[in-house]
């Protein structure tokens, strides 16, 4: 079980991220920018805007944490610092938790800014409370870390890693329920979507558009998302954070 030591890992990760001013700037302005563009696109169709804006607000934090986790961990695995870390007395649970916290902490800032702009300036109108949307957004940022760690297992070079972004990202997003709700999908789309993490993330968020309180569907979807996170981190402990490698 994780102990207080994870704080040291998080602090180091956070410090590394913080030094990269350009990435941090991009990271902070990109969701706000996307929200503004969405507003401009869909202002004549408020219903669609409310739905899309809500889902993007909640789902977007998943993307940058994916990038952080995938690239930083990939670099560490291939430069030897990961191996070095694994020879120290720090427990693996602490390492994983340290990375999670280190990557999702900046996400809080990003979510706060995008919320401020979307709720405050753009005036999105959704039934559910903002703090629920916020919690789901943070859950999705943790999910992003999990998917990022998983992605480092699929590729050998950074070249391939960067290619996985469109190849994994576009189908994932297309079948997630953002464009067409899961319930309206048929056949093989429906079948594939059942296994996609974002389908559950979107499912949970979509409920908040019309419902003012947390309902069973939302809880179910959120629980599955959380379960997928746990699964991904367990796999990560066995693969990314394996002490003995060939």
């Amino acid at each position, binding site marked *: 079980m994780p102990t207080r030591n994870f704080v040291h890992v998080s602090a180091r990760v956070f410090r590394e991220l913080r030094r990269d001013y350009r990435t941090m700037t991009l990271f902070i302005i990109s969701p706000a920018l996307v929200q503004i*563009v969405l507003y401009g696109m869909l202002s004549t169709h408020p219903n669609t805007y409310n739905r899309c804006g809500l889902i993007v607000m909640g789902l977007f934090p998943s993307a940058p944490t994916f990038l952080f986790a995938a690239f930083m961990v990939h670099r560490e695995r291939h430069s030897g610092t990961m191996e070095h870390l694994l020879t120290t007395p720090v427990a693996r649970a602490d390492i994983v938790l340290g990375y999670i916290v280190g990557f999702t902490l900046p996400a809080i800032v990003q979510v706060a800014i995008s919320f401020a702009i979307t709720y405050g300036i753009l005036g999105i109108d959704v039934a559910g409370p903002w703090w629920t949307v916020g919690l789901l957004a943070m859950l999705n940022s943790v999910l992003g870390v999990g998917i990022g760690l998983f992605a480092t297992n699929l590729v050998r070079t950074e*070249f391939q890693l960067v290619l996985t972004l469109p*190849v994994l990202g*576009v*189908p994932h997003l297309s*079948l997630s329920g953002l464009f067409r709700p899961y319930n309206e999908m048929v056949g093989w789309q429906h079948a594939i979507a059942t296994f996609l993490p974002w389908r559950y993330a979107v499912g949970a968020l979509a409920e908040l558009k019309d419902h003012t309180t947390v309902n069973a569907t939302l809880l179910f979807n959120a629980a599955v998302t959380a379960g997928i996170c746990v699964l991904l981190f367990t796999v990560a402990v066995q693969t990314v954070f394996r002490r003995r490698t060939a």
Partner: protein
Amino acid sequence: MIFTRITLAIAQRALRELRREPRSFVFLVGAPALLLCVVRYVFNSPEEFAGTGAMMVGVFPAFSMMVVGSIMVVRERNRGTLEAVLATPASRLELVCGYLAAAVTLAFFQALCTTAVAFGVCDLDTASPIWLVGLVAMLSGIFGMSLGLAVSALSKNEGEASHFIPGAMVPQLLISGCFWPVAEMTSWLRTVEGYLPLSAVTRSMTALRENRFGGMSLVYSVIAMLAIIAVSQVGAAASIRRRTA
């Protein structure tokens, strides 16, 4: 673009490296086609797909090449080979054009694959002949690589370059009308659309879909693409520092 012995040597080297990574090559050539299929089935019918689909035939190659281009220079710099190459008679512009020359080959195969899948599997239908669509798709791929190289020259590492995707690519995808018709967007957004690099790609593909041989709209967009390629190349070369601290 300058074609010197050095540019060709660098292009040859980049392609040879890629040949040693067959997975990457297949990914790169096949990714737009794959993505096109995925998007096709989000729509219920070929007619609904036609507008977005036509744009995607240009956008997906540009997008994937941009993603690749955005790490090329960074990779060289971090491996140390950039410094070694800069100590040779190769100029920075030749280096950047070498990559673009390699992209021409890749873009050719990519466009071949993408248009074959678009017209064969995804039931896309355009007013223009397929070979013209393929040609513009190929140009879009080269265009994407050029933009990527410009981003790469500015980035310190691959992780930083990758953040340009949600930061700069996604807003462009949205504004240029891939998911929602430009005509229905607010006026300020429509103005912005006119100035985005990606719009050159989307407008040319839409022109191909609507008119036989594209008409003047295609001509303007192609000229815009070529101009942007030239500017990106020069910008990328200029931002590579020969002397570092």
